[in-house]
Structure formats: C-alpha cells, structure tokens
C-alpha cells in the first residue's frame, strides 16, 4: 500500500540527528517570570521580536508540558524552593536559561535575600547577560541553546553526565557548551 512511492519523498538520517532536529525546533518554554527580565521575556514573544520564528511561541503554563525554563529575574531565598519544585516537575529532556545577571550571579543584589546565582538551585545551560537582557540577547541565548541541543547527546541525563574525557590532544565530539557568537 503506497510502497511504490518509496522511490521518492524520503530521506535517511541517523535517528539521533532526527530526534535532535525535532527537539531543537520545538523547545517550549515554561512561563516562569520573576522580575524585570520577565517583561523582556514577554516582549520576545510579541510581534517585534517574534520568538515563534524558532518554534518557541508556545509558553506553557504547566511545567509538565515545558522543555525550557527561562529563569527571568532575581531568585529570592523564599522563591528558591519553589523554583526547584517547578524544575523537578518538568519532564526530561529539559533545559534552563538563566536570564539576566540577577539569576546568573545575584547581580547588584548581594545581600541576605537573594540567591547568588540560580545555578546553586538548578543546573543552567545558557547564561544570558544584561540587566535586563534586551530581547535580542535572549534570542541569542535561545539560539545558543539550539546549537547546544543540535550538537549534544540525546540520551544524556543531567545527573549522570560523565566528565568530558580528554585524550592526548583530542577532544570527544560532544562539547559541553557551544560558543555561537564567534563567526565560524
């Protein structure tokens, strides 16, 4: 049934590449706005910046349906357990973008109330600098994450990530982070 059409309209690829391609093109973010950066995150979703060009306009209200958590803003001591819980509720595979300096390092608020870097609470894939990062910066962070998904392993689980094995002068082909900003 229809097998005679198989001589056209198909291509072959490694399953891993196809999975990564699919994942890369439909990273659905969770709505996790905290502070100023959340406003810029919303701006990314609107007409001027239009994140739907990258298949990401579907901001999911439920963490169960989301792949990406954009930690947009400062994380207080009171919020940190909530943040971790939301992260734990997300399904694998999942990624985290730390948006803005407050989420990345505490920023200018080095005091009793603010967690000095969200990477103390959840593992972070991409850090976006700025206070707040402009929508362009967030888009750049998103593209960096896409590149990371494209070149990463599909079965890597965060908790069990082995250290990158270094052999004499030869680096295995799964880079931990990809620098997209430099032209290649």
């Amino acid at each position: 049934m229809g097998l005679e059409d198989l001589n056209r309209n198909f291509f072959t690829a490694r399953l891993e590449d196809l999975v990564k391609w699919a994942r890369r093109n439909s990273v659905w973010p969770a709505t996790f706005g905290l502070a100023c950066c959340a406003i810029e995150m919303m701006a990314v979703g609107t007409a001027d910046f239009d994140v739907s060009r990258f298949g990401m306009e579907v901001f999911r209200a439920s963490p169960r349906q989301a792949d990406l958590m954009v930690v947009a803003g400062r994380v207080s001591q009171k919020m940190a357990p909530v943040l971790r819980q939301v992260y734990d509720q997300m399904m694998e595979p999942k990624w985290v973008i730390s948006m803005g300096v407050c989420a990345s390092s505490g920023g200018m608020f080095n005091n009793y109330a603010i967690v000095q870097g969200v990477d103390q609470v959840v593992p972070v894939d991409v850090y976006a600098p700025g206070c707040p990062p402009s929508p362009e910066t967030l888009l750049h962070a998103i593209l960096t994450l896409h590149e990371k998904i494209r070149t990463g392993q599909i079965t890597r689980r965060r908790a069990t990530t082995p250290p990158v094995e270094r052999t004499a002068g030869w680096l295995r082909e799964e880079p931990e982070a990809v620098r997209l900003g430099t032209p290649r």
Partner: protein
Amino acid sequence: MSGPEPETGTPPATGATEGGLAGASGRGVAGGGGSDVPQLVGRAGVQIFFPSRERYHDLLAELQVEGFEMLADLCGVDYLTHPGRTLPAGVEPERFEVAVVLRRLDPPGMVRIRVQVPEADPVLASAWDLYPGAEAMERECFDMFGIRFVGHPDLTRILMPEDWEGHPLRKDYGVGRVPVQFKEAPGPR
C-alpha cells in the same frame, strides 16, 4: 504650635517640596487635634507629631476625626548607629522609631507622626482598627524590625520566609554579602 525649630533652615526647593505640599493648605490640623503632643515643622510646613507610645493610638483617632482619613505610609527606622537626631524637647530618643504618614483628602493635607519605640520592649499599639490599610505595613515593619503591634489581626512575617531568624533591616543585622568568586578571574596581581 510648640515646635521649637525647623529641622534645617533651608528653604524648600522647587520641584522637591515634601509631598509636593505648597502653600498653607497643607499646614497642620485646623481643629487643634494633638496640640498637647510635642511637634516639629518639617520641610514645606508639614506638621510632625512626636507622641509617646501611650498617646499614639489616641492621637491617630483624634487626627482621623480631623479628616485625616488615609494612612499613606507606615515604616520603621532603626537609629542604632545614629542616635543624635533632632527631636523636640521632652522626647527621649529610643532605638526604634515608627514613622506614619497621614493624609487628608479634602482639602489636601498631610501630617506625620514619629513614635519612639524602645529596644527593650518593641511593642506599639496597632493602627489597624482605625486604618485597615495599615495591616500590611505593620506586618512589614514587624518582619523587618521586630516591632510588635498589639491588636494586629495577623502579625506574621510577610516578606521573609516563616522560619527566617532575625529582622533584616535592623542595623545590627548584616547585609549578608556573599563573596562571589569568578571561576575564570585572574589572581591578584
């Protein structure tokens, strides 16, 4: 008005008057409520009352009758490291102070109240039964300074987690600065 001196001799600046008060309309209490309480005149002629803790609640009630029907602001100050401040005669400086701003809507007016609260017994009557809007502000003041408000319906922490120890805005409470190390930072030169 028994206020001895304005806090400073500087004239109010353009565009920076206290609460934007201009002219006599903002001045004081027409009916003389709280005239027995020590007073000062702040910038732009704002009347500042310095009642004792016992007098504080009655003064609020008197001012409410005078038409000051909105409690705009309530906050605490910890004068631990700055004890010498200008106070009218007869008012003993204490470690804590609660500053209250009352507003009259028609005609527009504003008075302020500063109550001294001793460190040994940080307790003050709650303004909540007169001004329900004070509820969140008093909770914040309790959370940040540990001043307890008697008569408040729900005096719990509001900004900090429930199991937090200490009151962050007290002057003897550290900022909590965490030394940040940047992994790639070069060593000291």
